[in-house]
C-alpha cells in the first residue's frame, strides 16, 4: 500500500448534534484530518443503506454516520432507526467485498467538539490502514 495514501472519507452528520459538534470543533480551532468531508442531513435517520452503498461505489474509502446520542435525538427516535440499520448494513458489507470496518456509526453531541475530532482521527487512521477501497466491476 502506498505510503502517501490519503483515505477519502464521507461523513453524514445530523444537523442538530453531530454537525453542530463538528462546527464547534471548527470554531474552537481544533484540528482534525481533512480526509473527512461532510454531507449534512437533518437526522441520522435520513441515511439509508442504499445511500451508504452508493457512497462507497462513488469512491469513498470510508463512510462515517454521526448522530445524536440515544435519547437526545432532535426528532425523538430517528437515531433509533440509524442504530438498527447501520450495524445490519455493516454485517452485509463483507458480502459485497467491503471491509465492515469502513463503515462507522457514532453519536456525537453538539457540545462534544473534542470527541468529534477524536472519532474522525481514529476512523481516518483505521481506513488508512485498510488502504484504498478498490471495488471490482463497473463503478
Amino acid at each position, binding site marked *: 500500500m502506498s505510503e502517501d495514501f490519503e483515505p477519502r472519507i*464521507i461523513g453524514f452528520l445530523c444537523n442538530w448534534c453531530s454537525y453542530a459538534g463538528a462546527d464547534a470543533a471548527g470554531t474552537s480551532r481544533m484540528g482534525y484530518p481533512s480526509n473527512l468531508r461532510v454531507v449534512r442531513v*437533518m*437526522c441520522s*435517520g*435520513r441515511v439509508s443503506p442504499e445511500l451508504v452503498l452508493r457512497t462507497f461505489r*462513488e469512491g469513498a474509502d470510508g463512510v462515517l454516520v454521526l448522530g445524536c446520542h440515544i435519547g437526545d435525538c432532535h426528532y425523538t427516535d*430517528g437515531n433509533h432507526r440509524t442504530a438498527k440499520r447501520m450495524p445490519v448494513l455493516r454485517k452485509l458489507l463483507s458480502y459485497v467485498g467491503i471491509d465492515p470496518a469502513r463503515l462507522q456509526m457514532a453519536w456525537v453531541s453538539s457540545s462534544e467538539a473534542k470527541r468529534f475530532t477524536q472519532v474522525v482521527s481514529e476512523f481516518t487512521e483505521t481506513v488508512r490502514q485498510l488502504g484504498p477501497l478498490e471495488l471490482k466491476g463497473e463503478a
Partner: protein
Amino acid sequence: MMDAGRHPRIELLTLSEVVDVKGYVGNFQVRVRRNPRYVIEDLCTGCGLCVEACVWKNRVPAEFEEGMGMRNAAYMPFAQAVPLKAVIDPDSCLWLVKGRCGKRCQKACERGAIDFEMQEEFLDIKVGTVVLATGYDLTDDPQLERYGYGLFDNVIDGMQFERLSNAGGPTEGEILTKDGRVPEAVAFLHCIGSRDDEAREYCSRICCMYATKQAHLAQDKTGGRVYQFYIDMRTAGKGYEEFYKRVQKEGVDYIRGKGVEIEQENGRLLVRAEDTMLGRLVEVPVDMVVLCTAAVPARGAKELAQAFSISVDKDGFFAEAHPKLRPVSTNTDGIFLAGCCQSPKDIPDTVAQASAAAARALVLLSQGTVEVDPTTAQVVEERCSGCGECMVVCPYGAIELIEGKARVNEALCKGCGTCAAACLAKAIVAQHFTDEELVAQVLAIMSQDLAYA
C-alpha cells in the same frame, strides 16, 4: 376555580374523561365521555337537601378526606367544589346498585333535579390547541409496607395530614390519633419512595417544604415533640429557607438520616433511622408518623398520553419538547403542558408554567395559521405500495395510509427524513434533502482532489 366556573367563555366539563383524540394542531377532534352525575346540573342549586336525606349515611370512604373520613352515597364532593352540585355515587347508591331504596333524595329535592335514568354521554369537541394539566398523586407503593403504611394506625401520608389539620376535615383541624388522642410526638419521614434506587431516582420537590409547614402546624397544635428525618433540606424558593430556619427555631427537631423502618412497640410507633451527624442508629418512639411519599403522575396519565400521542419520560411524567428551552411544549404541535403532570413542582412554579402554556396556546390561536418548514416529506403515489413502513418509523405520527397510499400531514411532519430512508421503493421524498441532492454532494466531493496539505 370559581372564576373559571362562571366565565362566559369557559365550559367546565366535570365527571368527564378524554377517550379519543384525532387530528393535529389547529384541528383536534376530542371525544369526551361524561359520566352521569344522576343530578341535573341546570336544576341543582347545591342546597344539600338530597345529601341530608340519603339513607346510606357515612358509609363510603370520602375521596376528598383521603380515606380519613366518610361520606354518603349522595354527596357534595367538598365544600368548595365547582360546580357546587350534588352527585350520586353509582357504586354505593342503594337504588343504582340494588334497586332497593325509597329514593328519599329525589323526594327531598325541591327542584326535581335528581334523575336516576341518566346515562353516560359522549361529546365530540373541536379545538385548536390543548393544555394538559393533570397533576400528580402520592404513591401507594407496596414498598411502603416497611413503614407500616396501610397496616399500622397513625402512619399517614402528607395529604392525609392536610385533612387532619384542616378545619373542615374529619377531626375539625385537630391533630389526633385514630383513637382520638393528641399525639405526644410526631415524626415526618422524608424521601419515602423518592431519591431511591429501588423505587424512583427523582426528588419529589414539594415534600421538604410541606413537611416543614406541617411540622410547624403539628407542633403548634399538639405542643408535643416533632421530628423530621431528612436526607437533604430542599427549601430553595423565595422565602423558603427563612421559613425552614424559623421552624427549626420553634423547636422542630431536624435529624439528618433517612427513616428506615417503622415498628409497633408498646402501643407506640418506633422510628428506626440513622442519625448521620451523630454517626449512630437511633430509635425514636412517636405516636404518629407522616410519610413524605413520592409524587407520581396522576392516575390515568399514561392512557391520556396515548390518546394525545405525546411521549412520557421514564418516570411516567409527560415529556416536554426540550428540558431547558421548551418546558411547556410537547413534541406534538399544539399540545402544551402545565404543572405536575410534567414534573413535580409547587404552586408558584405551576402558576408560572401554566401562564406560559396559555401564552403558547394563545400564539397559535391568535395567528390562526401555522407556519411549516418546507423540508417536509412528500409521497410519490405511483411508487407507493402502501406497505406502511414510513408510517411505522415516523416519530410524529405524521403519515397515514389513505386508500392504500401513504400521505404525509405537512402540519405534523418535521422533516427528519427517516421515512425517506425507510422506503424501499423511494416513494417518499424528503424535500430539500432528496437522495439526488445528497448523492450530488457526494459526487461533487469525490470529483475534487483531497485538497490542501
